């Protein structure tokens, strides 16, 4: 799966994202700088990594969401291309309007950096097909603004359409309905606060994130 990892000034999980992509999806996965106007020819997955793009100035993800490359990412998503936003990448996706809602300050203000348990709620997406419904996986979080918020109608729609794909078993940050990750209406854009790319090798403490990348590979084959 031809993968482009977008780099913004202040991205700091870009290396991890590229490593996981090269290990599990595409040995030629490459970085794309935020000032580029287009994605490499044939890009199938855009990976928006974690970090503190633009120093989280104004709001986390706000400036990155309005950088030149995001026009190309939006066009890619409109064509049905896959987009994965992790942590700051999730914030960029909500700020750019590719996913509904917003991420605000953690309920207790702390920056939280530890492994958490997630329940896989929907295995019918391109990102979760390799998991089993209700499976609990261990994936690390590392964020200060991961408190998912959306108005009640939006939350009801997300729940009704099965767009909530990952839920915290023990809510660390105050997110509504324990939401940890959601997909777009079409299911081709996933945003999540936990870091699956940091859980792809036993050496890292967990391999539970592999399923997400295996799912994407499977989704491409069955397309």
């Amino acid at each position, binding site marked *: 799966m031809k993968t482009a990892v977008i780099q913004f000034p202040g991205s700091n999980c870009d290396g991890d994202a590229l490593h996981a992509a090269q290990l599990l999806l595409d040995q030629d996965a490459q970085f794309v700088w935020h000032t580029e106007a287009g994605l490499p020819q044939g890009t199938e997955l855009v990976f928006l990594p974690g970090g503190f793009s633009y120093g989280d100035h*104004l*709001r986390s993800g*706000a400036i990155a969401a309005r950088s030149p490359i995001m026009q190309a990412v939006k066009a890619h998503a409109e064509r049905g291309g896959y987009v994965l936003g992790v942590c700051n990448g999730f914030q960029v996706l909500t700020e750019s309007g590719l996913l509904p809602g917003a991420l*605000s*300050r953690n*309920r207790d203000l702390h920056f939280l950096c530890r492994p958490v348990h997630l329940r896989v709620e929907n295995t019918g997406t391109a990102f979760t097909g390799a998991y089993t419904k209700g499976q609990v996986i261990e994936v690390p979080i590392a964020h200060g603004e991961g408190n998912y918020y*959306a108005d009640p109608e939006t939350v009801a729609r997300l729940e009704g359409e099965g767009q909530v794909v990952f839920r915290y078993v023990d809510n660390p940050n105050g997110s509504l309905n324990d939401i940890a990750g959601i997909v777009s209406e079409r299911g081709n854009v996933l945003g999540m606060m936990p870091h699956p790319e940091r859980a792809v090798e036993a050496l890292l403490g967990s391999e539970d994130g592999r399923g997400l990348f295996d799912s994407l590979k499977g989704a491409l084959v069955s397309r």
Partner: protein
Amino acid sequence: MSTFKAKVFVTLKPSILDPQGRTVERALSHLDHGNVGGVRVGKYIELTLSGSRAEVEAQLKDITENVLSNPVMEDARWELSEELVGA
């Protein structure tokens, strides 16, 4: 063509929990200001813009609603005043 000074105030919607405001409120309470409540922390942004008043107002509305605030969780309002030349 005139120059205008804009003051933009961005606040969290009343329905959104403001943990920062709550922390400040608790600190004030510890400092014997127990009568203080409803602390909400927001943002204040200054800009200068040039153009006609109508142009600048439309532009400021666009900037405020689409960049300076996130309507999902924030409210925003602004004040606009013309800067007098030579003042």
